[in-house]
């Protein structure tokens, strides 16, 4: 189903968060997403990339254009080999955080995107897949 990319951005420092969200915005704009949609995608990437930094220390963000049932979407896959998430259901609740953040990262990114799923295994790592229809 992938039709372009993926563009891979390694995440290991705070400048990488900026790079990842800018790459996401650039691709979204090239694909004809509106300015609001592009900003929503870039903001979601920023949150998820920071989660990688805070909880796993390093990981990767892969951004691509996919076509599902004839519709285009920007797909973002964030992966790390960190400790994993103990309770995904709680991690998806506003205000719940085991790190230094506001606890808005996962649930907030979920609200910004059209599709959002988290797969995590303790001691193995976490993968977040999120998509936004675009345009």
């Amino acid at each position, binding site marked *: 189903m992938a039709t372009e990319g993926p563009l891979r951005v390694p995440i290991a420092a705070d400048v990488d968060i900026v790079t990842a969200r800018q790459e996401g915005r650039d691709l979204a704009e090239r694909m004809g997403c509106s300015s609001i949609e592009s900003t*929503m995608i870039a903001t979601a990437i920023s*949150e998820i990339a920071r989660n990688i930094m805070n909880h796993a220390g390093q990981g990767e963000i892969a951004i691509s254009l996919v076509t599902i049932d004839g519709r285009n979407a920007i797909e973002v896959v964030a992966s790390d080999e960190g400790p994993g998430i103990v309770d995904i259901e709680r991690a998806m609740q506003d205000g719940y955080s085991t790190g230094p953040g506001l606890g808005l990262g996962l649930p907030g990114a979920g609200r910004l995107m059209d599709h959002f799923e988290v797969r995590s295994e303790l001691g193995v790592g976490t993968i977040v897949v999120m998509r936004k229809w675009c345009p």
Partner: protein
Amino acid sequence: MAVPILRQGEYLIATVQSAMTDTEALRLRDDLVRQVGQYRARGIIVDLTALDLMDSFAARSLRTIAHMTRLRGADTVVVGVQPEVAFAMVQLGLTFEDVYTALDLEEGLRFLDARTGKD
């Protein structure tokens, strides 16, 4: 790159660029809190006109700036939040209820003048 901070009378004006990293956000916080005392500033404007998105870290840094400078006797007003940035912030869950905001630099200055009794 550090966020440039301009002095104008009793006010400090910080102009945030599009790609602010977490480190730069924290440095802006530290610079502003220090400069309030150094220059005896009574008001701070953080201009976000050029900022292309606000995530939870940047928002928390700005709230901390507003709260810390308040404790040092200066009001902070955030100006220039772009429409798409505001839209994404609300979806994310960031409402900035306890931070003063104004449309742009001009309105921000007017707000501070009123707060500090200049008009």
